[in-house]
């Protein structure tokens, strides 16, 4: 500290206390920025969403089976009032996320098991960063890849086998998204598996179990809560993903479970509603904020549950 020696000890002490106080205030302020962000998100979404719910009843939004935001662009256009039922959007989002999880769960989990239990230090040192590279690729790149390479490939493949696959099928977006979340699942599960105490393994081996048996019957059951948590986090990531679906999924809100058809998602609609030709405070634009709120609430619930499970699990072995 740059304090000259002629200042008396007392004054120095006082100055120190002041500095300590000031520093503490700055620190608290910084920590509160995170809280303020949450408040900001909730407030901005709620405020705009409430304006939306003044025009469209909440129950219509949550339980309506039809999404067709065809409100009049101008006062002299067709009197179509538009349907703002979010169910098809949620269904579409879940369909694509489910496909992504079906792809990513086995691949991610098996990769994690291999890396944690079988791979030697060198393989691990090479493969792990490569997998993480997948996570580091920007989503706009995945979107470009999904729309221009995966989708036509699926379509042509489907055609030669006699299937009709829509060119913006849920499958193309879901598959690509699955690839994107493999590293998320593998790295989280890797941590979880590594946290299982060595003593459990040793006990199992001691009883004569093979490595595979130990993993399946001892380690995985012990790690289940943690793995479940990481899968939930991955699902939440898939639900909130935007660019892949904006570029590769459709816009038509259809209530279907067929992955070969085109569906739309909550995030796609937010982007379309806020970047297309529209009036700025029509129900149509405001509905984007209502959708944002819905997305926030869904992912928040998933995250809270997931983080709780992971925390509990960690405590168990700490």
């Amino acid at each position, binding site marked *: 500290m740059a304090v000259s020696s002629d200042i008396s000890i007392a004054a120095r002490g006082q100055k120190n206390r002041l500095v300590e106080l000031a520093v503490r205030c700055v620190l608290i302020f910084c920590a509160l920025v995170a809280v303020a962000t949450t408040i900001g998100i909730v407030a901005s979404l709620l405020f705009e969403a409430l304006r939306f719910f003044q025009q469209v009843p909440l129950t219509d939004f949550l339980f309506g089976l039809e999404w*067709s*935001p065809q409100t009049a*662009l101008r006062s002299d*256009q067709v009197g179509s009032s538009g349907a703002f039922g979010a169910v098809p959007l949620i269904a579409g989002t879940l369909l694509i996320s489910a496909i992504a999880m079906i792809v990513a769960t086995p691949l991610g989990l098996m990769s994690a098991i291999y890396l944690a239990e079988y791979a030697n230090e060198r393989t691990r040192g090479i493969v792990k960063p490569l997998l993480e590279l997948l996570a580091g690729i920007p989503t706009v790149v995945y979107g470009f890849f999904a729309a*221009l390479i995966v989708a036509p490939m699926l379509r*042509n493949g489907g055609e030669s086998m006699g299937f009709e696959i829509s060119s913006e099928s849920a499958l193309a977006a879901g598959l690509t998204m699955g690839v994107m979340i493999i590293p998320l699942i593998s790295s989280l599960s890797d941590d979880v598996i590594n946290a299982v105490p060595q003593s459990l393994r040793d006990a199992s081996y001691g009883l004569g179990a093979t490595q595979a048996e130990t993993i399946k019957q001892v380690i995985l059951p012990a790690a289940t809560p943690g793995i479940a948590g990481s899968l939930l986090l991955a699902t939440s990531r898939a639900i909130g993903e935007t660019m892949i679906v904006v*570029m590769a999924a459709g816009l038509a809100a259809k209530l279907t479970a067929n992955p070969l058809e085109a569906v739309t998602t909550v995030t796609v609609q937010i982007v*379309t509603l806020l970047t297309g030709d*529209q009036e700025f405070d029509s129900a149509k634009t405001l509905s984007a904020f209502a959708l944002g709120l819905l997305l926030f609430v869904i992912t928040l619930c998933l995250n809270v549950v997931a983080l709780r499970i992971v925390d509990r699990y960690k405590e168990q072995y700490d």
Partner: protein
Amino acid sequence: MPRTFGKLRVSVALFALLATSTAANARDQITIVGSSTVFPFATTVAERFGKNTDFKTPVVEQTGSGGGLKLFCSGTGEKTPDITNASRRIKASEVELCAKNGVDEIVEVKIGYDGIVLANSRKSDVMELTRKDIFLALAKDVPAGEGKTKPNAYKSWKEVNPDLPDVKIEVLGPPPTSGTRDAFVELAMEGGCKQIDWIKALKKSDKNAYKALCHTIREDGGFVEAGENDNLIVQKLEVNPAAFGIFGFSFLDQNSDKIQGSIVEGNEPEFDEIAEGNYPISRSLYVYVKKAHIGVIPGIEEFLEEFISEDAFGEDGYLGDKGLIPLTEEEVEDVLDAVTNLTPVEL
């Protein structure tokens, strides 16, 4: 501690700097918002303008016609855009909104025409359609005898019109938020709808019912909302030769090696046909300028001059190469006149 606080101080100072720089410097760059259809033309002119003059290149943002006019009408001052593009004419309600916010003088510049085309892959045959076929294939409800309607159940073009091939109806088009959709509905759908006599009569008796019938597009899979990302639609059409896409003419022009436009009522969607007004589905494109900003933001007048120069929107201008259909000679006179005198728009 000195080191850490030094860093803190630097960042505080930087923020102060940022804050003041935001407040102080007056804008010396034109900002343009508006329609995504006019976007390719406005950006081409902006780029040329930036290269030909000492002014900065204007910033052009796609917000859609409606969104653009909304931003444009939000007031005057450097935080509001100077120019907005529209793929339709400004509405009386929008002029009112503008006036309410102090934007009382708006200069309208009609820059040309754009055809809307229904195109399919070159791997299939060219389709010869009428607007009535388009209406019957894509409407939500179709007429079933005098005065009655039924939900659209047509699956194949052949069911719509026996002369057409037996191809599944699958049209990829823009979402309701798009101005292209708006124009397509008004020009193609309503144009075909009117050809049915009792519906034409309905227009006089019950205007709302008429509009609801003519303007509503089916949602059962025959019409697929595929976004305004027209490039991706081209890719999709290539892999699905049965499908059609709805585009602006400029997109067809750029991708003429992969897709072909359908003939509508005997007219091919070609440059000359649209320019001469033969092709039935075409609309005008506009640029709106805030008069209050002329002289405040440097370069607006010069930018307009570049836009309406013979080199740009004239018959052989570079905008024509981008797919803009030029105005007729009389119209050009009117536009030149409006720009020189900066006559405010009157509806």
